[in-house]
């Protein structure tokens, strides 16, 4: 145990990437250590990247089947699969199971490259009592109050040489299972310069995310994809490695780092899934330059199709719904909704806009600036004046961060309030969302999976006095700065996507059609 720690810390201090042999040695030591440890952790599974844990099973075989002698290095190393919600089985039963499986794994690994077989055999054995062959685990970022999950995360980040960001401040008990970071301590402080493990443009991107310089799901996804293009450009395949497998493994620490800076959004998750699939589909005989060019072209076409052209299609449908004399209410700053309104104004539709805004982000001001620049007549209110202003409104246009599989809309906090009050006044609510933001997650409330922003943002200075400045000293006081909330489909009348206008309940149909296409 001590031996392993010194080895890894020594390497980390040098800031060099662990070589293959050292990784294998670490892995063996870990396995030895685990065999001696008596705990009833669930059966070992391959370590999945954090964002993949919230992604359904179909993506797993795609990335796990290209198992290679070198690729198992980071993958097998972490067999500490501790899902907190595993059903309780007897300790002896588990231990025997695990030992038998480890023996078989070791022989098969040392013998041939049978990683694929191993993945197939480990997964069904993982749930002997459950009917489905795949177990969905809770993603790490909603298990912050579980010390076992935190330890697992710390180990994983240490192995990937990504700095661990510590939580800040007192968390409201209902949300204690989520991370809460402070903007004043970015994760980049702990990285030595020059950082050789994490690509510098990723470091820059992470900083931009954590400081809120890049915000909004489309902006974040596009920035991520451009950065990945840069990474692919600078990548060179090490000898005896294949690009399709090695590049995917190179991306994992980057993704962990980015999610430490700011939890990944659903759109970013889908983009990453797409890139990984494209990378692993590169044929092995492809030359490096050709492969890199192909990947960059894929990324470009993804951005073009799913974001830019999609917003054109959505504007076309949405403009049909805007008639002359309309009073349209928008909330916050959604790039898509702003684009629709600008396009409608260009098409000579006569309407006026009411922009609703809320603290602490005050994103509505940015939307207001863009619309007024175009020449659209706007009114600006805070969300507390909503029920006052709604009798004047004829339609509500909302953007979405993600559309969940049960028809719920996940969007900026305050959206569900707007939808609720609009329903009470019988005002139609239209949600505009591209299909790449459709997510196979299911959520019925805003507590389970959310994001907590810096609580210090809620401190406001007025007349030279900031009352909440010393909120940390008051033991019974917690500041809650939620980022997202979830709107049920009963409040949404229409969803406009690039595939057309659909009711909120038809989201699973679109997901099904999309999966068939792929």
């Amino acid at each position: 145990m001590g031996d392993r720690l010194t080895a890894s810390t020594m390497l980390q201090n040098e800031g060099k990437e662990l070589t293959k042999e050292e990784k294998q040695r670490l892995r063996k030591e870990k396995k030895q250590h685990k065999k001696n440890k008596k705990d009833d952790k669930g059966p070992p599974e391959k370590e999945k990247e954090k964002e993949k844990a919230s992604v359904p099973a179909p993506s797993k075989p795609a990335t796990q089947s290209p198992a290679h002698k070198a690729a198992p290095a980071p993958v097998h190393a972490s067999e500490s699969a501790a899902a907190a919600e595993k059903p309780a089985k007897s300790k002896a039963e588990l231990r025997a199971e695990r030992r038998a499986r480890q023996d078989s794994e070791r022989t098969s690994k040392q013998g041939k490259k049978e990683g694929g077989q191993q993945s197939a055999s480990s997964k069904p054995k993982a749930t002997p009592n459950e009917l489905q062959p795949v177990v969905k685990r809770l993603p790490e970022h909603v298990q912050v109050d579980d010390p076992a999950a935190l330890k697992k995360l710390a180990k994983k980040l240490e192995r990937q040489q990504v700095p661990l960001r510590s939580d800040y401040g007192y968390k409201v008990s209902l949300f204690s299972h989520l991370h809460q970071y402070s903007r004043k301590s970015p994760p980049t402080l702990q990285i030595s310069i020059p950082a050789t493990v994490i690509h510098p443009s990723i470091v820059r991107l992470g900083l931009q995310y954590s400081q809120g310089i890049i915000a909004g799901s489309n902006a974040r996804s596009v920035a991520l994809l451009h950065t990945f293009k840069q990474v692919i450009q600078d990548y060179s395949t090490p000898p005896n490695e294949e690009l399709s497998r090695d590049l995917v493994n190179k991306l994992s620490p980057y993704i962990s780092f980015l999610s430490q800076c700011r939890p990944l959004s659903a759109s970013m998750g889908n983009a990453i899934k797409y890139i990984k699939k494209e990378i692993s589909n590169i044929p092995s005989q492809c030359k490096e330059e050709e492969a890199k060019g192909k990947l960059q072209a894929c990324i470009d076409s993804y951005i073009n199709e799913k974001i830019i052209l999609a917003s054109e299609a959505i504007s076309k449908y949405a403009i049909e719904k805007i008639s002359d004399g309309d009073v349209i209410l928008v909330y916050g700053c959604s790039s898509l909704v702003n684009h629709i309104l600008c396009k409608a104004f260009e098409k000579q539709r006569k309407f006026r806009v009411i922009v609703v805004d809320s603290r602490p982000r005050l994103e509505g001001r940015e939307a207001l600036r863009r619309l007024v620049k175009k020449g659209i007549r706007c009114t600006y209110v805070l969300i507390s004046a909503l029920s006052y202003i709604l009798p004047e409104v004829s339609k509500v246009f909302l953007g979405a961060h993600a559309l969940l599989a049960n028809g719920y809309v996940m969007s900026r906090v305050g959206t569900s309030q707007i939808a609720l009050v609009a329903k009470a006044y019988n005002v139609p609510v239209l949600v505009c969302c591209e299909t790449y933001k459709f997510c196979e997650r299911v959520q019925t409330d805003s507590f389970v999976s959310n994001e907590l922003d810096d609580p210090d943002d809620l401190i406001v200075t007025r007349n030279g006095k900031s009352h909440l400045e010393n909120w940390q000293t008051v033991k019974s006081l917690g500041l809650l700065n939620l980022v997202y909330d979830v709107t049920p489909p009963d409040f949404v009348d229409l969803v406009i996507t690039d595939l057309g206008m659909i009711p909120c309940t038809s989201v699973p149909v679109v997901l099904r059609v999309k999966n068939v296409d792929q």
Partner: protein
Amino acid sequence: SIRGDPDVASAVAAIRSLLEFLRRDQSETILGLRENMTQAIRRLEETDSSVAVSSGGELFLRFISLTSLEHPDLSQCKNVMIERGELFLKKISLSRGKVGKLCHTFIKDGAKILTHSSSRVVLKVLENAAADNKRFTVYVTESQPDSAGKRMAQKLRKLNIPVMVVLDAAVGYIMEKVDLVIVGAEGVVESGGVINKIGTYQMAVCSKAHNKPFYVVAESFKFVRLYPLNQQDVPDRFKYTADILKTVKDLNQEHPMIDYTPPSLITLLFTDLGVLTPSAVSDELIKLYL
């Protein structure tokens, strides 16, 4: 000739004439053929501005082109299209019977049914139920301005079904007596709502308030790719009859002939594709149109 046969739905007659048009069409290319067909559909819509004609026409066009038209010879392609067109026509002629068979089981013995205006599909359903030796009474609304409800009452009397005609204003009054409400539809929209004769929305709101089931019976060719958000979002070309659209200047003075019933008020839809909930309509539409 479209109004000639009272038993045939206007959409079916429209499709029949489209098929005939296809047979006689002289264009040289498939694109030209499609353009001519679209023009023909538009002309038909001008004469009879019902939702069903427009949806039926569009579905017909899609159905016949949904096959591989890779033959080098145009006449061969045309024959394929004509074959598919005849198949389509046969399917929709049978659809009313299918709907009737599905729905009549929902009518229990001793039921009191409320219906609105005159619908041939509802008539078929009630016919099937009567043939099944079920006893039930029917209340029909008068359905002004064309008193279509009275015609429906006459047809039902011929089938020996006890029927009573009520005023349109008496829907709220009669709702507590009835057990279920069955109406037809001129068009079924993407949200799962229906477009039907004016007065249907009122009936739906009343039945919701009294917790009575509100059933809609419609054939599948009436599914249309519209998504109205409220009453005023329904396009004008459906609200008024074709002659009024052509002659009158200020449409605000005219009274609309149809209204839109949102899906939240509808319990079930009976179609030849099966018994659907309003949210399933969108799935079916995606399958039909995509």
